[in-house]
Structures are given as C-alpha cells and as structure tokens.
C-alpha cells in the first residue's frame, strides 16, 4: 500500500465548502422551483441567494488559486487512457482488473474525471452562474432594455440545476470506486490517497 499527498489544504477547504453550498442550493433551489415545501418559499429564496453569493466568492478564490498554482492544467482533457477508463468502469471493476490509471500529484484526475470536471467548470457552472445572476438582476437587466424573459432565464437555470444534480449523483457514487470503497473520500478529507501498489500491475 502506497500513500500519496494529493489534495492540498485549500483544495480540500474549497471542495467541502463548495459541496455544502451546492447541496444547500439544490435543496433550496428545488423548493423555489416548486418541487416540495421545506423551509417556505421566502426563506428558501433568501438562503439560496446568500449561498449563491458565498459560492461566487469561493469560486473567485478557487479560480485565483487554480491559476496561481497552475493546478488548472489538471483539467486539460486528454484521450490517453480514456477508452481504458471507460472499459474499466464498464467491466474491469467487476472482475477486479487493475485500475488503468495511476495518479500522481501532477495528474490527480483520471481522464474521465478530467472531462467531467472540465464540463462542470466550463458548462454547468457558467450556465448556473450566468442564468442565476440574470434571475437575481432580472429587473435591472430589463430596465436597461434587454427584454429578458424571466421564463427563459428560469428554464436555463433549471436545466443547469438538473445537470448539477446529475453530476452530483454520479460524483458521489464514483468516489466509491477508488482502491477501496472509501479511499477517494479519505483523500478528500485528509489529502492523502491510498493507491494500488505499482507492482500490482497498474499501467502508468
């Protein structure tokens, strides 16, 4: 068994506070959407807005961190091992085949993760962020004469929310597919990831 320090303190802080905020926003957001009643529309809407600002602030820090540390390179998509990863999730994982990806500090996400996170960062987040701000500043935007339709803004924001929910479900499941059921989770808590022995036959 080998251990590798993979998530730095800020990264872990960013991840978990973001997780908390996104769960909070999904819970309040779907209440605002009319899916159920939990806190009451008014409180849900206020909490949703406050959480949105907190998340935006967090994103500003995270973006700054990614660029100053060069960590943004972790999300550059690659086709290397992509098919192998897919094959692993679809069959190898059930036959206890070795994990086709060996992570290092420089490459801490497998090619599928890279694609998924890049998609979150370049598609889902901007969609939610922009449609959310348009939702929040709908009156001001229209006062400036842009003729925005609140229904369209809401639909875009809802699509973003569903995409985020889908990502969230898959993400929560896929963290159980590490070396052990909990090794990914431990890594995100402690920073240290357990990985398979190189001798076990992992391709690098």
């Amino acid at each position: 068994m080998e251990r590798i320090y993979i998530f730095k303190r800020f990264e872990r802080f960013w991840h978990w506070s973001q997780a908390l905020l996104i769960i909070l926003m999904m819970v309040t957001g779907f209440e605002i959407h009319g899916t159920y009643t939990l806190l009451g529309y008014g409180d849900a809407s206020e909490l949703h807005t406050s959480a949105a600002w907190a998340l935006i602030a967090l994103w500003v820090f995270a973006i700054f961190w990614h660029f100053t540390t060069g960590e943004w390179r972790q999300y550059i998509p690659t086709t290397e091992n992509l098919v192998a990863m897919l094959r692993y999730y679809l069959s190898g994982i059930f036959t206890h085949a070795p994990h086709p990806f060996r992570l290092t500090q420089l490459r801490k996400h497998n090619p599928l993760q890279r694609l998924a996170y890049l998609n979150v960062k370049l598609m889902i987040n901007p969609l939610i962020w922009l449609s959310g701000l348009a939702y929040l500043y709908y009156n001001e935007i229209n006062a400036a004469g842009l003729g925005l339709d609140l229904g369209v803004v809401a639909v875009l924001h809802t699509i973003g929310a569903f995409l985020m929910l889908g990502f969230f479900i898959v993400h929560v499941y896929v963290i159980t597919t590490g070396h052990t059921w909990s090794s990914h989770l431990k890594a995100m808590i402690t920073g240290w990831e357990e990985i398979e022995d190189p001798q076990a036959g992992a391709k690098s």
Partner: protein
Amino acid sequence: MKTNRTNRRARPWAAALLAAALAGAAFQGGPALAATKASTADHTKFKELQQGFASGPDVTKACLICHTEAAKQVHNTKHWSWEFLNPATDQKLGKKNVINNFCISIPSNYPFCTSCHVGYGWKDASFDFTAEQNVDCLVCHDTTGSYRKLPGLAGHPPYQDTEIPPGSGKFAKAVDLTKVAQKVGRSSRDTCGTCHFFGGGGDGVKHGDMDSSLAAPDKELDVHMDATGLDFSCGTCHRTSSHDVPGSRYTPVARDTEGAHIPGRADDSLPATCPACHGQAPHKGGGHAAKLNDHTDVVACQTCHIPEIARGGVATKMSWDWSTAGQMGPDGKPMLKKDEAGRVIYDSKKGDFVLGENVVPEYRWFNGEVTYTLLGDKVDKDSGVTRINRLGGSADDGKSLIWPMKVFVGVQPYDPVNRTLVTPHTAGNDDTAYWKNFGWEKAIKTGMQVSGAPFSGEVDFIRTEMSWPITHMVAPKENAVRCAECHMRGGRLEKVGGVYIPGRDAHPLVDLFGWLMAGGALLGALAHGGLRILRRKG
C-alpha cells in the same frame, strides 16, 4: 431593580390612565382628535352661525358669506354632478348613469339615493344644479357625528323627528343645525364614511375594503388610518384641493410610475396612490427588501399588503340574487332571513345575499381602463356572465399591474326582448315601487320611463359580475401576504397569466427530462454498485 419595582407599582395607574384615554377617544371619536389639530377659526364665535336654521340651504347661505367660492368649487365635482365623462372611452358615467348589480340604478329613485348627495333637494330631474345654497356643506364638514341625511328626504336631514321607515315606530331625531354648523371642521373618516362605508345599501355592502370598522380602525385593520397610531383621515391620501377629491373608480391610476411626491417640487400634486408617498422602491434595505422591490413592476402594492378584505368584523356582500325577491313570510308580509351571526341573508325586497368576511380577493391584470355595460348596451344571457364593468389590462401592455379585486356576482332583472339591462323603480311610497308593490313589470316600466329607455314589458334575470379594485385596509407589513402564497401551484395568483412565477411555473419537458436524467443516474449508480457488491472478492 428599584426602578423596576417602581415601574411595576406604577403600571396599574398607567394601565388605568391608558384605558381611560382610549375609552375617552373611543367615545369622543372625531371631535377629540379634531380639537388637537386646532383650527384658526372658532365657528361658535361667528355671528352668522349664532341663529336657528330652518333648513340645510339656510346653513349653506351662512357658510357662503365667508367661504365665497366653496359652492362653485363643489359644483365642479363628481360629488355634485354624479356625472363623469370618461375621456378614454367617451362613456357617460357617474352615479347618475351607471347600472350596477347592487341597488341597480338611480334615476327613478332619487329621493332615496340622494341621501348620499352633497346637496339638498335632488328628488328628480328638475333639481337646480346651479343653486349655490343647494350644496350641503355639513355632510362633509360635520364633526359632531349627529348630522344624518335620511333615505327618502332627497338629501335633506330630518328637520323634525321623523319615523323611518314610515310605520316602523323608529324615529330619527331632528338635526340640531345650529350646533352642527358651529362645530364644522375638516372632513374625517366619519364624514366620508357616512356614505362611502354604506355604499350598496348597508354597512360594508359594496366595497369590501370600506366599512364602518374604518371609522376607528386598529393597526391590524389599516396601518395608516390606525386611530391610535398614524390616524390618517381619508383626505390624507385623497388630498383634496378646491373641493375636488382625487382618486377615481372610473379612471383609476393602476400603475403610478412616478416617484414620491415631495412638496415644493414643480409638481406638488398628490395622487391617491401608494407610490405618491412611498416611491418606486418602497422596501428599504438590501437583499430581501431589494427582491421585494423587484416586484413593483408586476404587482400592485395592494396585492401583497391587503391580504384579505372585510377584516374589521363587518361582512361584505359577495353576491346578490334579485330573482328570488318578492317571497313573503307566513303572514303574507315582507320578511328578513338571517344567518347564525344575525346578518340578513334574505330580504323580500332584495332577494338572497351571500356575505363574506376576511375574504381573499381575486387577482387580475389591470391598467386602469374601465368600461361599463350601460343602459342600452346589448347583453346576452347565453354568453355566461355579463360584466357590469370590464377591466382593461394584460401582462405586456406596460401599463398594468396585478391587482386585488372584489368580484361581486349579481343576478338582476333585464329585458330579454330588447336584451338590455333595466333600471327598476325600487324605492318609493307609490303604486309602482318594487319595495312597496313587489311587481317587477310595473317597477321596471316606471324606471325605464324615467330613464327614457324602451322596455318590452318582459322581465327575466341575468347573471352579472362587477370587479372592485381593492385599495383600503392596508395591513401592517408583518401581515402582508407571504411569498409562498403566490409562489406555489394553486396559490393566490394561480389564474393570473402572462407572467412567469417561480414556484408556480415550470417547463414540463425540462422537468421531465431533468428528473429522468437524475433518476437514471441514481439507478445506474445503484446498479453499478450492486453489481460490484455481488462480485466482491471473497
């Protein structure tokens, strides 16, 4: 600690004093409050008023000695003419001309209806609208609460003790004109309320947001008129100049886009709208307040701030069915039926009523345009409900807001041959008045003759609806309508179209695919994980 004990000991005294003060205020009402806002003139000291008056017009002549222009000013108002030409629709409106689904119409019933006219003697078309002494100053400027005009006296108060209604054994005392004249003052909730609280033939009948409970309301009932708080009179908002009272039901301002009006600015008018004082961003502060301000281009202030109407303990009529009028009691005489609260729900003279208290209004887009169904306009019984007034407005005309409405339903007589509404002669001590003779044909024939309109002789009943935009009984902000009451499916604004309301509206396909995707992801994860568990080593 010591102060606390002193306070505790002092409290019974304070409570007693407060109770006494409140009781005093309650008993004295308007006059006590008026006295605190001292006038520069004590009318008891005017020689002109130190005499006995034989009639109302005699009092008016005395008033006009000093207030030389007052009667001319009143002559120019709707309060005097009961006429209004709507410049937008060219419809001739005003009480004289409109037909409603309460007491229906005025023309053949003047001596009764004009007990709410600001004049003396309007009993028929011969009334002299140019006579200055015919203006009734006292009905608006009385502060004693003892001035009353009685139905049937054509706008005069009783000059002798008068049995009302005749044969009832109940007497209305003669008005002491000298006392009333010497105690005149500003108009008040009481004076305006003398007529406006009792529109439609009784307390609270017509409006729903105006009844006698507003004479001395508490804060819960009306945050502005709160008798022990801000204590607004009607004139505080309906700020009157030259006797012309702003605020009109014929051409209301549905969407005031101006800021707060500040005295001294070029335009120091004060329309009777909320933004006239509160401006366009009435909720102060950031965040939540800012989000509330975002609503003001869609929702009228009244929609959230008047959660229910008829909140003061006085019921308002929600419907009136004239078609059941005329049933007699077992003794063959006109009868009243009452509900368990003792309120009249059937009157042989008028038919069946449905009453409502704490009524949640209906909501509609409204741009201030009101079109009436007038005498002579064709009506169609088969087309469902006939609208006494049709309100203009839509989500996208840029002039409308979502307004609360009292929607009043009537079943009233009409002429099925000529297909017009009719103007029955209801009140009167003669051979055709419905309330004396209980015969529709005679009553309508007389009424239509006076109106100068054709009548076929056939009588049927037609279902009508009248919308009353709601604007009084503004609740304290704590009691405003909660977000979720509209931001939900099946909420207050369920039927209001043309606007996306978060919580009410959603794109069904987006929702369907969204939940299918999320559900699919969850099922996929469970299946994948399940398979992994099954294939676990060992």
